[in-house]
Every structure is written in C-alpha cells, then in structure tokens.
C-alpha cells in the first residue's frame, strides 16, 4: 500500500460458531477515500467479517487496528463511536416511527432531558440530503415508504452517525435501477469526502462500476486482493470457487426414461413479488437441486409447494392430476405424500424439549394411532426402524431431542418425515451447520430414497452439494428460474455464473473494469 498507515486493518481474525469455522485468519486493509468491494460465495465469511468490524460479534482471535492503534468493540455502539457504521442487508428501521425518529434512534438530540424534535428534524434533513434522498419528508412514517425509499433512509441513518468507514452489505438489493444510480453517485461523493467504503454485493457489475479495490473471500479467509480492472470476471469466479472436490457423494443413477407423468409438476407458480412464473417437473427417482444466491425465492418455492404460503397462483400437478394444497396437513396426506424438511431444525423441525420418541412420531401420528389413540407398540416399532435406518445416535427414546448433537437432530427431522413414507421430499438446506460425516450419510440417504422412487427437491447454499447430489439444478434469480442445468452441465462455474446472472459465455467479456 502506498500509505504508511491504513485507516483500518485486521489481521488473523478468526471466528467459530460451534464446530463451524466462519472466519479463519482473515486479513483486510481499508484505506480512506476508497471504495473496497468484497466478493465471495454464500458462507464465505463475508457476513461474519462485517459483524466483527461493526461490533456485533467478537472475534475469537486476531486483532483490528484503526489509525494504527489496536481496538476492540464491545458493542455495535462502540464501533459506531469509533466511526465504523454498517448499513445492514435486513432493514433495521422501525415501521411505525417517523423517518426522523429512525435516523436518530440510537442517539437523539436532547434538550432538558427530552428529545429536541426541532433539532432532530434538522439532523434528519441533513442526513437525507447527504444520502441523496432530500425528497423524503423527515416526518413521514417509515411504513408508508416503499421498500427502495426505506433503504435510502437506512443509508441516511448510517450517515447521521458521522462514519469514517461505511459498510454496505447488499445495500442495493432492494433498490430500483434509478435509485441504484442515485446511491452510486452518493457513494462516489462520499469517497471524494475521504470516507472509506466497504461494499459487499453479489452483483459483479456493481463492484466493477464502483470499487477501487476488491478482496475475494473463500471458506472464511481472504484469497486475493487486487485493484479493480486487473482481473477478469472469469478469474474472479475461479477465485471464489478454488476448492478441490472430495469424493463424498454417492454415484448418481442415470434417470430412467418413462412414459409416466412426473410425480410433481408445477406450472406458472407465482407469489407476491417473491416468486415469478415458476414451472418445472420432477420425475420419480430424480434429485432436483435449487441453486442460486441466498434469498432468491428458493425457500418460498418450497413453502409454496408445501401449502404454507397464502395466495399462491399457478397450478401444481401430482402424477398429472391437478391438486390444491392449502396446508401442510393436506400436503402430507397419502394421495400427495409430500414432506418438507424445514430450514431451521430448532424452531421449525423439532420440538426440542420433547422426547426423541415424541418428535419422531409427530408427523406420522396418523400412522401409529387408531381413532386418535396412539398404539404404543406400533409407534415403538416404527421408531426403532427409523433409528436403525438413519443410524441415529441417542441414549434412548425418552431423552429430549434437544440433548442430541446437531447432526443427530437433523437426522430426527428427516426420520420423522420418512415415517410418513413420502413420495415427494422437499429439503430446505438440510446440511447447514452439521458435521461432514452426517452430511455424507444424508447424501447417501437421498440417493437411496430416489432410487426407491421418491422425487426429491433439494435446496442448498453449498454448491458442492448441488453438483454432487443432483440430477438437475434449477438456478433461481430474483424469484424466477434463471437457468436449468442438467448432468455434466452442473459445474461450480456454471452455478456461480448463472447465480450471479452473468451469461457464462460472456463472463470473459464482462471484464471487471473501473467505471
């Protein structure tokens, strides 16, 4: 670096969440008057990096320096005071308060111990003007503003705290194109004013337009930092992948062509603005992956199929017959036979304080009861079968499910649905936060179930899994199916390129050049 003392520097910063290493010896240097782009796949450690910088979580190891002096933050407020302010991806505004109230929420101006409303309005007005959103009235209620305007308020709120380093985490994902260009000019002006900006985005062309420097993260550490324009889009994608495959996946069974209608087919599914015109079909024995960046509608698609969402338009056909699925209760019934392994096993999949037995039979109570009365013997034999099938390690069926390890808890979530003998299995990121051994067992189980004739739809944030497990992958972008990859086409490169909405052939042309 040309400057002797960078504005901010972190060295060897590590953070573990349980057994998962989110950040491992990460380094980052941020200079004043620069926009620094951060790139990386889902789970590469970007979010953890930001959380550590802005004082939300404390690192396990490593040090951070501001102006060459070592610092640590006990809370987000401490980071704010030091001049590091973050604009979070999730909107942090309180809908029923006014724009001005929200902007000064953490530190309102006071007069005689009460909030000085006039001064508050002035501060809000100034911040909004700096954020290039002078048209928003400070007294307007946040809930009355459209989403893109709220994001502008969010930026104004950050600016009102007089930051030296401003972190923007996917700050443009909710914005309209005209707002994006407005935000960009604001950000460029802030750069001229000498602020350091950290810009995290999945949209490569935005990074290309804005950033002076880029740092690529992979598996919790930084792999490369370079000046924008020195690397091609293709090279950057390669850097983001960079992993070796390990042979943990079972062999795929070639799909059998049959005349039978697909087990499940959906036509033109749509839901609010989060799902757009989704059509696809799954045959018996197929494992279909849902790919794409986090939050492009994959979860909503699974929930829509399972009858959880209200107001879904479009058609779902089971073995060629149109059906209406209005609730999970209908979805799991014999003639449909659907199962959903939900995203969060602790709140959606399991009843943690209840026993392993109660959890295992909970979704299949109809199978182990007669006239509403549970048949203890039948229940026990079903449960024992599942414990054997999935090799669940438990000290007994009477202990609470919460006492088991994460991997075994996830096995229980899967087992409780297998007890229902589903024909269609939807999985929402089933391997998140569990150990490698259990992951392998789950991959093998999925393939086995498919070979036995189940139709499987599998959302994963881990590209390796999609490549290793799936016969076809539907890459989603902004609520629609952007691309379908099958067989040999499923490569990490293709997955990332289509997830980022970059045409694969044109990746080379989209040189990351300075704006």
């Amino acid at each position: 670096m040309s400057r002797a003392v960078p504005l901010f520097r972190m060295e060897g910063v590590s953070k573990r969440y349980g057994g998962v290493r989110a950040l491992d010896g990460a380094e980052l240097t941020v200079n004043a008057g620069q926009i620094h782009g951060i790139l990386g796949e889902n789970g590469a450690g970007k979010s953890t990096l930001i959380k550590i910088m802005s004082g939300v979580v404390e690192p396990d190891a490593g040090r951070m320096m501001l102006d060459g002096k070592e610092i640590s933050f006990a809370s987000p407020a401490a980071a704010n005071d030091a001049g590091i302010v973050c604009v979070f991806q999730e909107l942090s505004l309180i809908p029923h308060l006014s724009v001005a109230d929200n902007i000064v929420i953490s530190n309102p101006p006071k007069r005689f111990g009460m909030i000085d409303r006039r001064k508050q309005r002035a501060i809000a007005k100034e911040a909004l003007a700096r954020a290039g959103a002078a048209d928003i009235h400070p007294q307007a209620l946040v809930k009355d503003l459209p989403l893109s305007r709220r994001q502008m308020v969010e930026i104004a709120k950050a600016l009102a705290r007089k930051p030296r380093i401003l972190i923007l985490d996917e700050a443009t994902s909710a914005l309209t194109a005209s707002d994006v260009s407005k935000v960009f000019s604001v950000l460029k002006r802030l750069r001229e004013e000498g602020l350091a900006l950290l810009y995290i985005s999945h949209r490569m062309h935005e990074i290309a337009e804005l950033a002076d420097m880029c740092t690529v993260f992979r598996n919790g550490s930084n792999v490369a930092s370079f000046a924008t324009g020195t690397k091609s889009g293709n090279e950057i994608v390669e850097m983001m992948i960079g992993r070796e495959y390990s042979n943990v996946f079972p062999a795929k069974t070639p799909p059998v062509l049959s005349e039978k209608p697909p087990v499940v087919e959906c036509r033109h599914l749509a839901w609010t603005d989060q799902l757009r015109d989704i059509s696809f079909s799954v045959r018996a024995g197929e494992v279909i992956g849902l790919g794409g960046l986090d939050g492009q509608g994959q979860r909503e698609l699974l929930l829509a199929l399972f009858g959880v969402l209200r107001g879904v338009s479009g058609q779902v056909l089971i073995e060629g017959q149109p059906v209406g699925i209005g609730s999970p209760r209908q979805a799991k019934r014999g003639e449909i036979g659907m199962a959903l392994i939900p995203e969060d096993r602790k709140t959606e999949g399991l009843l943690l304080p209840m026993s392993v037995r109660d959890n295992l039979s909970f979704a299949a109570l109809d199978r182990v009861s007669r006239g509403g009365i549970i048949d203890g013997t039948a229940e026990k034999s079903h449960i024992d079968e599942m414990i054997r099938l999935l090799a669940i390690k438990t000290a007994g069926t009477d202990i609470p499910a919460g006492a088991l390890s994460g991997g075994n808890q996830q096995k229980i979530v899967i087992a409780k649905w297998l007890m229902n003998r589903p024909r269609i299995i939807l999985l929402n990121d089933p391997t998140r936060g569990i150990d490698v051994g259990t992951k392998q067992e789950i991959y093998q189980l999925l393939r086995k179930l498919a070979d036995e004739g189940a139709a499987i739809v599998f959302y994963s944030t881990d590209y390796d899994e999609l490549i290793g497990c799936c016969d076809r992958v539907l890459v989603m972008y902004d609520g629609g199916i952007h691309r379908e990859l099958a067989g040999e086409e499923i490569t990490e490169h293709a997955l990332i390129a289509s997830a980022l909405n970059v045409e694969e052939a044109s990746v080379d042309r989209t040189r990351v050049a300075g704006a």
Partner: protein
Amino acid sequence: MSEISSSGRQRSNRQALWRRIDPAVATAFGCIVLLLLVGSIYSPNFLHLDYLLLQLKVASFLGVIATGAMLVILLGQIDLSSPWTITTGAMMACAAAAYGPVGVALAIPFGILCGVAIGIVNGIGVAYLRIPAMIVTLATNAVAQGLMVVYTGGFSPQDEATEAMRYIATGFLIPGVPNAVLVWAVVGAGAVFLLTRTTFGRAVYGIGNSERAAYLSGIDTRHILVIAFAIAGGLAAFGGVLLAGYSSKAAQSMGDVYLLPAIAAVVLGGTSILGGRGSYLGTVAGAILITLLQSILSVMQIPEAGRQVIYGVVIVIMLLLYGRAPASR
C-alpha cells in the same frame, strides 16, 4: 450405537424414572406436606382423616376447573374467561331445572354445553381470528357476565340446583369418599389419557413447544386450539355446576374467586406458563396445595385481602423458580 444394549436399556429406564419425577411436582407435594405440618401446629385437626377428605372435596372443584386451564396453558395460551364461564355453567344448569322434568334431566349437560360454547368462541378468536388469547377470553368473560346479568336482572337467581347436581357435588357413592372427589378422579383420568395416549395430547404439547414446527409437521393447529378451548370452557362450566350443586344454587360472581387459583394450581404443579411442558399429576398437587393454603390462611384468620396478596406472591415466587429452568430440559 444404533441398538441399545440391555444394560443400557436398564440405565435409560432408570433415567426415565428419574426424569418422570418432575422436580416441580415433587416440590409441590413437598409443600403440601409442609403445609399440613404447619397447619397441625395451629390445630391438631389438620391431620385428621375427616379434615383431609373435606379439603380434598373442596380441592375437587378447583381441580376440575384447573384441568381445563391446564390444557389451554399447555398450548401456550391463557383462558381468562373462566370466572363467568363457571357462573354461566352454574346459572344455566339451575335455570334449566325450572323447565320441568326434561329440564331437570338435561340440567348438567346444558350447563356444560354453555361453557363449551364460550370456549368455542374463545378458540375461534384465538385460532382463526388470531386475536391474543388474553384479549379474546377477557372479552368473552365480559360478554358472559353481561348476558348473565341480563338474565338474572342483577339479582341472585331464584332457581335451585337439581337433585343430580347436589348428588354429584355432595353425595357419597362410595361410603366415606365424597362424590366430588370421584368426579375429579374421573375428569383427571380422562385428562391423563387425553394428554399421554392420544394424538390430540401429543399435538397439544407440540403446539405448546413450537406452533410453527407443529404446523409444518402437518398438525391442524387451529382445530386443536378450538377443541382445547372448548374443553376448557366445558370443564369450567362443569366446575360451576358442581359448585351450584354444593351450595344448592348459583350466585353472581361465584366464579371470580377461581380465576387466579386455577391458573396458580397449574403453574405451581410445574406446567410451564409458556406452554409445552407439564404433567397432570402436577396440577393435582397444585390444586390441593392451593386449597390447603387457603384453608390454613383462614384458620390463621388472615382476611381475604391478605390471602389474595399471598397467592400473588406465591405465584411470582414459583414462576421465578420454574421459569429459570433451561428451555431444552
């Protein structure tokens, strides 16, 4: 370790036995013994069989009402409509008695049915209209009160309890054992069966722990909520019928003194006020404990106001003790 060895099974059985003895239930029973000992200092009568049976009989009314309250609390909800559901049950049963022999025969079921109706309204409000249970049940309580005041004109109703009502509340089918205690035993056995042996019971515990997980597991959560509130309403009204039989007639506000004790009995028995955890044995202990506490406070000649203060304080203390238990135990 997919197969549990026989020694392991023995060990897990022993652990299961230990786990089954809920510390909260044990504490509640311990407190009962303690109260009896303290009471016997004031009056040696406290340890006489007659006195104990009388207390058990008084506890039966509370026990029946608390059974319904427990079901709702297990779901993570609350039923504040019990005071006037009790009164409605009592008044309507007595009112039916005025309509000739058919009315007399149907007095008890009619009273219960009125409570079930109130419960169904509560359940629909909570499950389908998504109004917080606290609001809905307070509102139905007020409505029930209004309807009863209109019906009676605000005076003590003149209708008398039927023979059958008096018999189940005060009679002796088995010599020495009051019928009210038998009634509670039957209601309790039903509750235990419902909670431990049926899909409904599993669903109740499941919803209490995580309504979202239960819904995603294909449980018809709204249906279960309505049924549970209906049963709670029915049991509160049945409690009212028993009370009317006990004192031969219904009275204005006769249910008011049962709201706090019913909830307290459930919570003192170790049922989590947040739902999902608790056993019926605990509620039995809680109901007896509350009844003994009341009895001792009156023997010690503490006025009604003091008693209310002590209930409140005891509930807060117990909640503090139980509320700190780790969530995943």
